[in-house]
């Protein structure tokens, strides 16, 4: 099918884009990579009255270190994240995710900002950014605000962004000593959404876990942290039994919906297994082992 009719705007600056969003008041949708929005429009499941194309705005696509944080511009393509040496060296979960988001064609267009702003629980960046404790920078008519990632995902397809705000940047804290991350995803075939996926960001002091953040993909209506699993790991010596306990905790606290990818029980069990793998991989990276 083809989309219904819509007005098209191509602002040259962030301020112009924000002014348009403010004027259109919820009737306008931002177009970045378009690989979540345009399919929905093609099936006429989404019919925004206007599209605000931000691909023409200069200066929104970058990956660099600034103030002890990795800052990523909203219109940075997933393929750029996949190619980035900086990400590859220090941000294991982000590097892992960038290889499994959809397929290479989608990754050439899809953006980090769009992946987050769409607030789809099946997207990969929400769980990765939750595990990193990242921050989202939003620009509105009143100015700029920084939204902590734990407050960013509010409901199914609902983020904390107001209708007149534009996501402009994502900020990820630099890992400290003994800290590393990993992302494990199981999908039926290349390019598919996750049956389940686990992002783990762990800090080790010897063989004791001193801090950990774990988040899950596509096993809840809203991207979630696996807080029970975190509690089963933090402050403990990590061995097979703690990993098993954490895996069971994650399986119990997630809230998957049954669909063609699997039943509730299946998705819970996959979450349990993936948690063990993600944490083991993160620990291996943290203690200087395998990548």
């Amino acid at each position, binding site marked *: 099918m083809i989309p219904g009719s819509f007005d098209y705007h191509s602002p040259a600056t962030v301020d112009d884009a924000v002014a348009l969003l403010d004027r259109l008041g919820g009737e306008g949708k931002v177009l970045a990579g378009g690989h979540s*929005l345009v399919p929905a429009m093609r099936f*006429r499941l989404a019919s925004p009255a206007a599209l605000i194309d931000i691909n023409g705005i200069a200066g929104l696509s970058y990956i660099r270190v600034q103030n002890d944080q990795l800052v990523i511009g909203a219109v940075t393509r997933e393929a750029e994240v996949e190619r980035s040496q900086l990400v590859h060296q220090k941000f294991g979960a982000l590097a892992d995710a960038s290889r499994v988001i959809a397929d290479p064609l989608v990754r050439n267009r899809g953006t980090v900002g769009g992946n987050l702003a769409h*607030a789809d629980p099946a997207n990969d960046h929400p769980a990765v950014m939750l595990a990193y404790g990242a921050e989202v920078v939003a620009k509105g008519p009143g100015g700029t605000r920084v939204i902590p990632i734990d407050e960013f995902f509010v409901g199914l397809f609902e983020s904390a962004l107001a209708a007149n705000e534009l996501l402009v940047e994502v900020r990820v804290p630099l890992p400290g000593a003994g800290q590393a991350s990993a992302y494990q995803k199981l999908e039926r075939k290349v390019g598919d959404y996750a049956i389940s996926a686990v992002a783990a960001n762990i800090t080790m002091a010897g063989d004791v876990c001193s801090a950990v953040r774990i988040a899950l993909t596509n096993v809840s209506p809203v991207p979630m942290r696996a807080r029970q699993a975190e509690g089963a790991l933090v402050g403990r010596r990590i061995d097979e039994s703690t990993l098993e306990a954490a895996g069971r905790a994650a399986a119990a606290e997630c809230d998957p919906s049954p669909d063609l990818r699997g039943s509730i029980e299946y998705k819970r069990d996959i979450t349990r297994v993936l948690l063990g793998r993600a944490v083991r991989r993160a620990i291996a990276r943290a203690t200087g082992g395998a990548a």
Partner: protein
Amino acid sequence: MKVAGEYTFDGPRDVVWEMLLDPDVLARVLPGAEKLEQVGENEYEGQLKIKVGPVQGDFQGKVRLEDIMPPDSYTMHVDGKGAAGFVKATGRLKLTPQDDRTVMTYDADAQVGGRLASVGQRLVDSAARAIIAQSLEGLNAAVKAEVAAQATLPTAGATRSEPSPPVEPEYRKPSQTQFAATVAKEVAKDLLPPNLRRALIAIIIVMVLVLIWILMT
């Protein structure tokens, strides 16, 4: 698919029961339903607008209430048809008092078909739960308002048979503006190029609101 759950309302059972039978309240509960028109005994029809994030579907909805056992339970049949697909659901609602609150348990069987179901298959379950949660919160707000309204009345039992006036204006104001805005936008879209639209829309909204105000006083 099966949807089951429970929800606690902040109001006594007879208040909740009355509201669950009231079509104006049901219109609030069913998502995006502006108004339900009675087409038969315990049978109502109306437009449902369901919105989950960027996805929006308009449905022609029919609601039928059956096996009504006051003040305890009834069965609700919902039949929605739209361009994006169809929804057919049957649910049993049961109310149990708990101190001055009411626990409602619901057990429903729903079928979703058409484009929504095939393209959006992975989301049907989460969306259903999100929509039900929205509806129940809306209903709870109405219950709380009714309880508050009854508490401020000097005579007991005065308003049991109708929805209480304080609730109505609160509901109507946003929908009047929305309605006026929708009318204005449609008219403007047909008449004018984009740069003049905004001014015309504003003028039309003001005119429609003035008209409604005149008709109501």
